[in-house]
């Protein structure tokens, strides 16, 4: 075994850490108030050469992403970003996924056209399957419908939680092909910026936390998408369990977020004069232990992806994500207890971290991820892609 970063991993870790500390942390409050996409931060990623982290080397990328040669690399960037600004980490997470999807599933023409723009101009991408009411209906029961017409599809429906939806060069959205049952009719489509029929629903983004990961609802009204903008073959997403390939960069966000709270405490508690308190020491230690117990699960899961042990990697990624969420929630509870109420002024960094982490940990119902693992070990049928 070897628990060391490669040179490139260390470089990314340090570079993003520096960006986070010097730039993202300072801008976090402002973007939170405005509930706007942190474009300056995304520009910093581009300037640092990090927009292509999950794009293959042949396109000039760094080859990370679950299916890439170094799955851990971009997770470190996500983790380090989350330490300073969870909203920005979610933005870079979703961009990395959009780019990875096009990289792995796109046609040569799409890769050239779309990823070329990412590499050269810092174009952003995303990927959205979510729709209002999906939790109760089931993951792949989409109401948004793509009707086959000559040369493409006409799409009608509504997608929510479209992070970066206002800023991307292409919104990657998922719909159901009219008349084709799920999961075979599950189709991915690239909606170019400015495409006719796509509008942002007014006032559709105003959450308690994660406000700067602006994720509005998109309305699709007879939106025509040509065949050149169909991503992969219908059903590829459920068939290849793509959803499971994104578990880890959620986990990295929770890890980074918890670490950010820890960083804050390590600085704040001694200043407050309570570093000698038995219980402050106890809870601080428990928090640290929790963070480490999540960290090495994530890194190990990334190693499984790298070795292409896909089934193992999917399961272990889910496991790592579960522990990361569970730990993040515990960290918040214990951290609040020892920080005390004076640390929670409305415009304080800790208040922002708590609002963000509280919301972001709800991306998964951890009871269900635990139960999925239980099903596996009890010989029952299971689905590693299931998400709230």
């Amino acid at each position, binding site marked *: 075994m070897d628990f060391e970063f490669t040179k490139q991993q260390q470089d990314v870790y340090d570079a993003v850490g520096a960006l986070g500390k010097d730039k993202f942390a300072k801008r976090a409050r402002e973007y939170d108030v405005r509930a706007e996409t942190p474009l300056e931060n995304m520009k910093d990623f581009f300037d640092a050469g990090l927009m292509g982290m999950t794009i293959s080397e042949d396109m000039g990328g760094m080859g990370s992403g679950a299916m890439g040669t170094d799955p851990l690399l971009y997770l470190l960037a996500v983790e380090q970003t989350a330490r300073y600004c969870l909203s920005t980490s979610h933005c870079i997470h979703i961009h990395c996924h959009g780019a990875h999807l096009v990289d792995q599933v796109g046609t040569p023409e799409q890769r050239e056209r779309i990823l070329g723009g990412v590499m050269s101009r810092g174009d952003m991408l995303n990927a959205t399957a979510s729709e209002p*009411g999906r*939790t*109760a*209906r089931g993951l792949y029961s989409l109401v948004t419908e793509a009707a086959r017409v000559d040369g493409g599809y006409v799409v009608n429906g509504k997608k929510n939680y479209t992070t970066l939806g206002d800023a991307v060069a292409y919104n990657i959205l998922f719909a159901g092909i009219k008349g084709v049952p799920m999961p075979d009719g599950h189709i991915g489509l690239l909606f170019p910026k400015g495409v006719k029929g796509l509008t942002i629903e007014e006032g559709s983004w*105003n*959450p*308690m*936390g*994660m*406000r700067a990961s602006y994720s509005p609802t998109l309305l699709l009204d007879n939106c025509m998408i040509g065949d050149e903008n169909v991503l992969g073959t219908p059903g590829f997403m459920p068939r290849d369990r793509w959803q499971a390939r994104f578990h880890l960069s959620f986990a990295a966000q929770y890890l980074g977020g918890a670490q950010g709270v820890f960083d804050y405490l390590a600085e704040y508690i001694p200043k*407050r*004069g*309570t570093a000698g308190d038995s*219980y402050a020491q*106890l*809870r601080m230690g428990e928090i640290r232990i929790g963070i480490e117990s999540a960290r090495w699960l994530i890194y190990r899961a990334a190693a499984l992806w790298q070795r292409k042990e896909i089934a193992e990697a999917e399961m272990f990624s889910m496991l790592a994500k579960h522990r990361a969420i569970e730990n993040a*929630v515990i960290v918040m*509870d214990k951290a*609040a*207890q*020892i*920080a*005390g*109420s*004076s640390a*929670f*002024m*409305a*415009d*304080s960094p800790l*208040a922002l971290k*708590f*609002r963000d982490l*509280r*919301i*972001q*940990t*709800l*991306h998964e*119902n*951890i*009871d*269900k991820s635990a*139960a999925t693992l239980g099903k596996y070990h009890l010989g029952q049928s299971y689905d590693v892609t299931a998400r*709230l």
Partner: protein
Amino acid sequence: MDFQFTPKQREIYELVGALAKEKFAPRAAKYDVLATSPVENLQDFRDNGLLKLTISEDLGGMGSGAMGRDPVLYLLAIEQTARVDMSTAQCLHIHSHGSHLIDHVGTQEQREHFLLKVVEDGALCNATGSEPGRTSRGQYNLTTSAERVDGGYVINGLKNYATLGDVADFNIMFAGVVHKAPSMGHLMIVVPKGTPGLSLVPDSWNPMGMRGAASPSFKLENVFVPDDHVLGEPGVYPRERWQAKFHLGFAAQYLGGAEGIFDILTDYLPKRGTAGDSYAQLRVGEIRIGIDSVRWLIYRAAWLWSRGEIQQAELLSLEAKHRAIDNAVMTMDKAAQVAGSSAFWADSAMARFFRDMRIHTLHENLDKTAATIGKFYLGQEFDTTARL
């Protein structure tokens, strides 16, 4: 044993429940934004005679409060208020606390002077011991100083977390008599609104939650307090462990807040379509169990006060408060998990409960409370008044 409400308790429970639902709930978001005392709600308390809950019957009060005839009564009012608005509940708590102090520590003359204004005119009181840095200094080590002069004291210092500070008619405050040990020099004074030298510190109230329980800082610059505005002998507050008489008022707030979250959940989940989900059922059930386990500890502790078993009452009040906080935090964690992120719109009642509860549960260091109980049972020295 008999676990039924008396007719009077039932009446107050229903009355405040109705006020909460019809009046306080619709206003809660507004005061949360304004971060000022909920004057309309306070007027409703006034109009319904609820400002005299903890004043003795001889002055026209209802005789509740820890030292009163029916300690449960005012707790029910606080609990029911907290169910829709934790900030307003804290306002009622602090006013009840202040008026109860005057009622039981004041001279007959002081009682009549101050409390008849409450009973007849609906005047508002509060009580403020807090100062910046007190957690690490110890709760009775005050830096606000009282210097003896002819006919009274001259006060200088800074008090923070003065709930109702923007509207209270009488501010009850604590200061340390110069050159005296905290136990002998802990002075309790009444500083009426508008007293020369007393000023609110601008922008001193902007927390993440509990914003409607406006608790700004007060500056005291050469404030003269005449002898007839001094409550009790110096040191009476720590010596008679008055702080311990207010544990239950906090506990009732945490109980009400958890009930409020539960109310939202049981309304929301069936609408969301996840009421049939095994894990939603599990967590909702666990929350219910937690809430009821708090409720009966609080009522039992209140009953002990009514029997004059002071030490047992203090200890069980601490237990009830600990369990109430523990449960409030657990309730938040489990509720979030089953509610999902869509329930947390920035201006939603759910988001407000989470911000409020997150802050407000920090009034006590849970670990120290438990340790106090442990000390008692292990035959060690203990202090039931200790607060963060």
